[in-house]
């Protein structure tokens, strides 16, 4: 909300400086958005009399002027075509900064003539584009007076952000009251004159929608002469960015800002049938004062006469009954509208008006009679005429509430031991009145404009709460909320900086665990992957349906109803989807070789889980001693293995099946399972058609690990280490098997051939080359036998080897390679 300093001072008696005022506003919760002090930059420019302007001896287009700025006579060379003897202008002396040109003036000599200053154009003062000549002021402009003072520009404009709870602070008077309560002056009394009622109002009220409008007043002023407002009122409004319309309309806008009290004026002669009725809309079209048409709904409260809807209550008036220069009889509306009703209507019709923003925060329910009188008085002052009686419908609602403050709660809750007298004084300056007080507490009547204090809004409790628990909690709220409101007011006005900071009390000498085991595992997985050469990314949780569909299901239940862009509308089925797009963006920048991973949400119809996903795109780094290679799914599998083994998964229990999801290459991908049901991870080369759809050129391998599927390792003490006394024996075997036989089956068979003796099986060679029969391959393994009782004899080793060969042959049909 904007207001000028002089406007503020019509309500606040103060000697405080502008910076005192703005600093205080920020500290008490009326945050300063900005101060516009248009005059500050111009304060040194004085009104000056051009005593003489004669042709420059050495330049056709220049004049030599003698200028009196009230502080002396100066010689000035001026190039403006309109410089002439006897005129009044604006003068800048040497040393002053010229806002329009960004130059600081110096005494100079122009073609042999001394120039001690400058006569300014509007553009040079930074006041617009006019540079056709120097400023030509009226003859009565006072020489020596600073230009901004004469031009009325020395009035700083203060802009504050008003929080949604403070409807009362959306008024100059409300701001003045807060400042006074914070100790920055005294709030002036609001003087309300007596306006005699001379006739019966030709327009009256009827309320058919009391929930939306409990109370409305009105008064007719007849014999008015409408026209432009006087200058002071126009200046008030233009200073805060409002456009003056005509005196009657300007009066309503003035009180909206001055008292936070929106009003509306009807041209009484245009109201049909003599009764204005507050009722639900019924689908009528209605043209508002902004020239736009709206269709009002049954939940919109409207003001209608017999001709139809004339106003959208509390939001915007109508064009048909508006006041213009021909208006001679005006009906002033001063109503109390329900905040929620106004909010819903304004939001639906997308009308942001000064009236709406005040009604929806809640306005002063007791101010209606005084506001009606003040508006009537100002209309008569500006436009003449005589006033009718005050007509009304409904009644003043029951707004009176009390709140009690136990003084000890200031320290126990607010953390600051404010003396009781000081606390009460602050509240009284805000308009609270003491109803009862003892040594321990004070009970106060809440002023009518503070709808936020001791408000009685409904709870929205968890429906699953046990009834007794819910009732006890509700009683706790009832008891504590009004007091919390008062503590807030007392602390706010003294500045929260006054509350001493206290470090958190320790719960235990050494803190307990910060992370759950699951959280710690995610953090560990992050470090493992980064240590494996992948860089962590954070990508959006949503992307286009089309791209999401490449990577998994895209149910409409996970599609945003109001996406910000069409390509950000589907929650991703896996972080791999957005990582692949990230790899593509990097490739577009000329960085096709990237290794990225992300630990983040994967969204599925059955719920949200956490994936550690990664992509290795492009080729591995080129080096003199290693072939440049990329697209090896085994690298992705190694990433999976690194994470799973670090997280304590029993690796020997895992199986890899060849049924990875469709975004992988069907022949170069796998699903990692623990038992038949649990899928821990998938990995592989990305499907060529996915690469093509993403416009990802090079090879890319990827993996996805479902961190939530990993069982929490059993928290038990480690078993003793296995440290046999006898040396292990290693034997190599080369098996020839059908090319379709999977290595995992062969390795498991070998490992299982002699469980107590075989501790390790390593596949060290796979051969499918020319020297192999077509459709066959050779798998070479190294088996480690670990004796435990005695050194193995040759016969025992031979027997164990025979078992390995037999077991592998049985499982895979393998023969030993000749």
């Amino acid at each position: 909300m904007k207001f000028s300093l002089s406007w503020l001072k019509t309500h606040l008696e103060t000697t405080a400086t502008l910076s005192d005022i703005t600093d205080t506003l920020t500290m008490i919760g009326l945050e300063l958005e900005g101060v516009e002090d248009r005059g500050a930059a111009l304060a040194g420019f004085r009104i000056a009399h051009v005593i003489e302007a004669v042709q420059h001896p050495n330049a056709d287009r220049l004049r030599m002027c003698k200028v009196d700025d009230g502080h002396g006579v100066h010689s000035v060379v001026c190039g403006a075509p309109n410089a002439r003897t006897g005129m009044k202008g604006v003068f800048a002396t040497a040393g002053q900064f010229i806002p329009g040109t960004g130059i600081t003036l110096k005494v100079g000599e122009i073609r042999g003539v001394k120039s001690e200053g400058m006569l300014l154009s509007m553009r040079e003062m930074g006041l617009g584009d006019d540079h056709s000549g120097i400023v030509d002021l009226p003859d009565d402009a006072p020489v020596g007076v600073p230009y901004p003072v004469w031009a009325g520009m020395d009035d700083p404009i203060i802009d504050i952000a008003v929080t949604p709870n403070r409807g009362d602070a959306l008024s100059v008077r409300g701001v003045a009251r807060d400042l006074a309560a914070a100790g920055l002056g005294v709030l002036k009394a609001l003087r309300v004159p007596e306006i005699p009622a001379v006739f019966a109002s030709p327009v009256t009220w009827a309320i058919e929608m009391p929930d939306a409008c409990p109370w409305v007043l009105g008064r007719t002023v007849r014999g008015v002469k409408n026209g432009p407002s006087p200058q002071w009122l126009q200046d008030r409004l233009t200073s805060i960015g409002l456009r003056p319309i005509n005196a009657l309309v300007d009066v309503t806008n003035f009180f909206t800002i001055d008292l936070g009290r929106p009003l509306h004026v009807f041209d009484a002669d245009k109201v049909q049938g003599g009764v204005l009725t507050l009722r639900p809309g019924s689908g009528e079209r209605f043209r508002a004062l902004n020239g736009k048409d709206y269709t009002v709904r049954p939940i919109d409260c409207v003001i209608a006469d017999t001709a139809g809807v004339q106003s959208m209550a509390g939001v915007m008036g109508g064009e048909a009954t508006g006041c213009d220069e021909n208006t001679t009889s005006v009906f002033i509306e001063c109503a109390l509208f329900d905040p929620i009703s106004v909010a819903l209507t304004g939001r639906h019709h997308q009308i942001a008006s000064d009236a709406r923003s005040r009604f929806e925060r809640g306005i002063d329910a007791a101010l209606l009679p005084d506001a009606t009188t003040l508006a009537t008085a100002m209309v008569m002052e500006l436009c003449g005429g005589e006033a009718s009686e005050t007509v009304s419908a409904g009644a003043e609602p029951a707004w009176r509430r009390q709140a009690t403050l136990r003084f000890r709660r200031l320290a126990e809750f607010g953390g600051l031991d404010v003396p009781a007298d000081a606390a009460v004084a602050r509240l009284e300056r805000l308009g609270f009145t003491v109803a009862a007080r003892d040594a321990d507490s004070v009970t106060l009547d809440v002023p009518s404009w503070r709808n936020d204090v001791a408000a009685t809004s409904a709870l929205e409790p968890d429906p699953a709460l046990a009834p007794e628990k819910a009732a006890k909690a509700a009683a706790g709220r009832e008891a504590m909320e009004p007091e919390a409101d008062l503590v807030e007011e007392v602390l706010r006005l003294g500045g929260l900086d006054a509350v001493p900071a206290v470090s958190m009390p320790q719960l235990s000498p050494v803190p307990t665990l910060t992370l759950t085991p699951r959280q710690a595992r995610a953090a560990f997985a992050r470090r493992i992957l980064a240590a494996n050469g992948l860089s962590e990314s954070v990508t959006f949780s949503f992307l286009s349906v089309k791209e999401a569909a490449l990577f998994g299901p895209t149910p409409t239940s996970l599609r945003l109803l109001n996406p910000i862009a069409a390509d950000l509308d589907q929650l991703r089925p896996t972080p791999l989807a957005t990582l692949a797009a990230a790899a593509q963006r990097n490739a577009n920048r000329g960085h096709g070789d990237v290794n990225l991973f992300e630990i983040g949400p994967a969204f599925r119809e059955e719920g949200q889980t956490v994936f550690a996903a990664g992509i290795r795109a492009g080729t591995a780094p080129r080096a003199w001693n290693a072939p440049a290679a990329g697209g090896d799914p085994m690298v992705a599998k190694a990433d999976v293995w690194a994470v799973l083994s670090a997280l304590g998964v029993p690796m020997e229990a895992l199986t890899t099946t060849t049924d990875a999801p469709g975004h992988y290459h069907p022949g170069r991908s796998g699903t990692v399972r623990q038992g038949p049901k649990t899928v821990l991870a998938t990995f592989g080369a990305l499907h060529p058609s996915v690469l093509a759809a993403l416009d990802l050129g090079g090879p890319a391998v990827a993996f996805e690990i479902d961190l939530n599927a990993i069982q929490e390792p059993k928290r038990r003490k480690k078993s003793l280490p296995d440290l046999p006394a006898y040396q292990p024996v290693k034997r190599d075997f080369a098996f020839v098997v059908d090319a379709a036989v999977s290595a995992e089956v062969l390795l498991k068979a070998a490992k299982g051939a002699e469980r107590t003796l075989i501790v390790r099986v390593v596949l060290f060679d796979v051969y499918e080359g020319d020297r192999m029969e077509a459709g066959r391959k050779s798998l070479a393994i190294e088996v480690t036998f670990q004796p435990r009782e005695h050194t193995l004899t040759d016969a025992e080793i031979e027997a164990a080897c025979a078992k390995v060969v037999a077991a592998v042959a049985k499982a895979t049909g393998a023969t030993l390679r000749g």
Partner: protein
Amino acid sequence: MTDDLASLTSETEAALAAAADLRAWDAVRVAVMGKSGTLTNKLKELGKVAPDERRTRGAALNVVKEAITAAIESRRAALESAALNARLAAERMDVTLPPHPVVNGLIHPISRTMEEMAAIFGAMGFAIAEGPDVEDDWRNFGALNIPAHHSAREDMDTFYLPPLEQGGRRRVMRTHTSPVQVRTMIGQEPPIRVIVPGRTYRADHDATHSPMFHQVEGLAIDRGLTLGHLKGCLIDFLRIFFGISNLPVRFRSSYFPFTEPSMEVDIGWNRRTGELGGGGDWLEILGSGMVHPKVLANCGIDAREWQGFAFGMGIERVTMLKHGMPDLRPFYESDIRWLRHYGFSALAPAMLHEGV
């Protein structure tokens, strides 16, 4: 010494000198000292020598044997040393070659900041709580004293999802991490100390707003926690997080539906240079307040018994300030150049005893 022994010695020495490698050397050794070597044969023949000559002959043979053994061993050592030198010369390589390439991975600055927050708040007894990104509108709004008509629901530019069942609660992308406050208060009895780092979503996209961003929420509920503890907790955090022990921190009265009193928190900085600490300007950094009695009641907590505070701050914002990062958007771009520049080592996690 007899002539035959003298010539044996000299012949052997000549043969050893002629042996160019260990194989030739071994042949000489076997020819002299082997089972039927020349010296061995002479030793065998000692028994046939007449008893009176035997002593002299034996002594002479021993002298020769010792000399020849020494010569053989000495030649072996020389040949081995030469062989080793030859091998070392052959194995010479260009050690100026570049080493094996190692690709370093990195931790994203958002994760790093979350880790640092966990470390600092953890030391103050807070635990990490989490919740889903898709919430119902009661947890995101209603329970937090933001009723259906409240303007805050508009201000927050909420993303909505279709309800799961006809007439069910509206589903939203959580606009803040505060719904986890609600989950925590319903799920556990006070005292409570949690922080909630996580993804949040608002329908806003420009240079300084992203439709997805991260927040950390804090909630502390206990019997005697006051607004003074709120200030102390946040000042302690901010000073350690930014590593400025005298960082100016200012608390301004404000309004949030879920707290009362509510405060905005500013830190001191220099608007012109962007440097934190001095400079006389203030920078808004987070919102906070005492938990509203209505929020406690909605979650079944009796405000007469329990009270506490809550706060929320933007993780990207504090990360940008801490590291002097000028722009928000690259956080989600995955530009490898940016990640390499701002990323953190996996092997240096945030730990209070090593420094955050």
